[in-house]
């Protein structure tokens, strides 16, 4: 009897083991990880901006599908590609260090590549997080941008006659392990000539300090934009002084304001940082030279404690011969013939001054965030400010920061 019972117990146990085994076996899936050998790191921005208005409704919308190493059929229509970046929309004013738009976005439209695309991204390279850069094959690659209708249908499912409008079809040379940003640009505002600019970035090779914030400037406007008639430009008050363009050669002056909560352009500034000469920027859409980085100390203010600071920078762009002290315009003047434009970089880039000033708005170059027992702690970043026609864009690259202390 006892033996019998033991036998019963055993059988139950065997059943359980068998069931477990089945569960385990069915849970095993062989995962094929995609891998790119010898990758280069690429980030793509579409700088052809547009606005949907009654007057411009018949214009072609610069909304693209990007292909790397496409396969085209006899009629020149792409049928597949090694890498596809679909729904490439005009770029956002702010390109954050992480593809953080994934978390909040409900639309397929991608403000940059890789952006929302679920692809292999770059590693942390010399302390720089490259998760906004996609891995792409190195060597000579063919790159193509095709116009596509602004809807949610993936490119290859579109009707055939919609797939043949190619804007750019070119070959670029990428070196393995190098970091590139590519810009789709309108190079001439009058003739509407477009092109690409491939810039090989060097920030990860520079000996940069942890206590300085770095920024470099580019003017990638179309030739003839600032001279063009106002009626041809986008009328958007949020762009403030930038909307009518700036001249081809400009000096940049830096002012560091003490407090992000004082929304006044006459608010207190850090001593020594009120209209300080900072950099020069010239119109360039032809050569992919990296402009030098300028820097300011993040602990410039006396009120900072080495952990956190509330300062924010303002950049004034003046034509050579003019500066903050000799500025002939009144502070709120937005239409200055391209001689003076300015941008405030504070908070999340959505906050305007309450005083009458003429600045466009972008997020702060300094990252203030909760870190361990410090809330907030301030971290330095490496930035790029790009002016394209009437718009100004900020790209922030985040560095590997010290781990939080609890």
């Amino acid at each position, binding site marked *: 009897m006892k033996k019998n019972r033991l036998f019963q117990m055993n059988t139950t146990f065997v059943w359980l083991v068998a069931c477990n085994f089945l569960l385990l076996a069915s849970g095993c899936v062989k995962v094929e990880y995609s891998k790119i050998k010898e990758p280069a790191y690429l980030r793509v921005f579409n700088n052809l901006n547009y606005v949907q208005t009654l007057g411009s*409704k018949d214009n072609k919308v610069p909304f693209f599908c990007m292909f790397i190493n496409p396969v085209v059929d006899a009629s020149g229509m792409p049928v597949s590609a090694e890498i596809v970046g679909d729904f490439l929309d005009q770029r956002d004013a702010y390109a954050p260090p992480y593809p953080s738009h994934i978390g909040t976005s409900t639309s397929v439209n991608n403000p940059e590549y890789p952006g929302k695309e679920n692809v292999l991204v770059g590693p942390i390279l010399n302390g720089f997080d490259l998760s906004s850069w996609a891995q792409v094959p190195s060597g000579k690659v063919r790159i193509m941008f095709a116009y596509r209708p602004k809807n949610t249908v993936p490119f290859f499912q579109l009707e055939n006659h919609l797939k043949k409008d190619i804007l750019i079809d070119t070959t670029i040379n990428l070196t393995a392990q190098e970091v590139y940003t590519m810009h789709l640009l309108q190079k001439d505002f009058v003739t509407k000539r477009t092109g690409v600019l491939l810039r090989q970035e060097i920030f990860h090779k520079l000996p940069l300090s942890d206590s300085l914030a770095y920024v470099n400037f580019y003017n990638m406007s179309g030739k003839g934009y600032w001279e063009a008639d106002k009626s041809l430009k986008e009328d958007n008050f949020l762009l403030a002084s930038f909307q009518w363009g700036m001249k081809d050669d400009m000096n940049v002056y830096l002012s560091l304001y003490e407090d992000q909560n004082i929304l006044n352009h006459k608010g207190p500034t850090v001593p020594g940082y009120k209209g300080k000469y900072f950099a020069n920027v010239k119109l360039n859409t032809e050569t992919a030279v990296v402009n030098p980085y300028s820097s300011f100390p993040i602990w410039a203010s006396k009120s900072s404690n080495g952990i956190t600071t509330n300062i924010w920078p303002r950049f004034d762009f003046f034509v050579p011969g003019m500066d903050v002290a000799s500025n002939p315009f009144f502070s709120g003047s937005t239409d200055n013939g391209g001689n003076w434009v300015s941008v405030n970089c504070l908070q999340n880039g959505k906050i305007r001054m309450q005083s009458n000033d003429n600045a466009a708005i972008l997020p702060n170059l300094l990252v203030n965030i909760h870190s361990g027992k410090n809330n907030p702690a301030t971290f330095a970043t490496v930035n790029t400010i790009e002016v394209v026609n009437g718009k100004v864009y900020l790209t922030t690259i985040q560095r590997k920061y010290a781990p939080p202390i609890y």
Partner: protein
Amino acid sequence: MILAIGMQLLLLASCKHDDLTIAAPNENIRPAADFVKNNYEMRLFYAAIKKVGYVDELNGAGPFTILAPTDAAFNRMGIYNPTDFDKLNADSLKKVIGYHLLPRKLSVTDIPNNGIDVRYATLSDAEVYTSRASTNPNGGAENELYFSGSEVTRQDVILANGTLHVLDNVMKPNFNKTVQAWLAGHPDYSVFVSGLKKFNLWDQLATTQQFTVFAPNNEALKNGGITAASLNEMDASKYLGDLLFGVYLLYDRHFFVSDGQVFSRINSNGSFSYFLKNNSHYMTFGGGKQYPSFKLGYGLVLYPGNGPSDSPIKAVTSEIVAKNDNLCSNGLVHHLVDGLVTPEQAIKK
């Protein structure tokens, strides 16, 4: 052992659904032509479908999208009885009715958000222009849909072989006809046509350049002091033709009246301002639903320039829906109820 077997039994028993009932599918959904036939708001549309011989095709497999104008829409065009269709050219009628029928199932959600002038093939040889206002970037959802300038008053009526949208207006496609040919074929606008000819503005209307023409009929021009007789006596060299008649031409634009309404929804700005060609006068076009009729209409306001001290010379609102949105191969013609510029205002100085 017993436990294990019991478990198995329980598992098996849990899969048994003897009394599972599925709602019987509705077998009363009608195919397209029968649906239209049985709808008393669309009697005239059905009569037209029947007359041009689309009934069998529309009761077939499909899928179809029917853009069905109501009887009221036909009435506005002067069609009150099915027999009125007999007075029309059968071939032209077939093409116009075919323009209201799409060989696909097009639900509102298939149309891109805020898509403007999205084109879809029809059973005729021209494409229909579809504009959908769905979101306002400043916040808020919109839900307006227009086909070639006609408002959809009821969206997404499900048919057995497709879908149906009720149109507030009959669409007016003219296929290969240019705006010039359209104007030449309408004697109502004969003075306008002679004026365009007299001031060398006529020939361009037959080219492939796009135009939006605000066409004043003879009565409207008479209000503005121009008749056939007075036009004959005019010395063309003494007047600014680009103002006197050029004021009615909008170059390089393709505006349905509904476009103003759509952009007022999605961009909070339904107007477009422009300088007249070869002239310093400044015009503002604005389209939208007019108060108190809530029907689509448009307004034109003419200014001497675009400076802050330039006060309007003349403002006209034109809201005869049935006469607007004549879609031609190189643009659109809208009816204008009043003249904008008198000959005295256009004398060369």
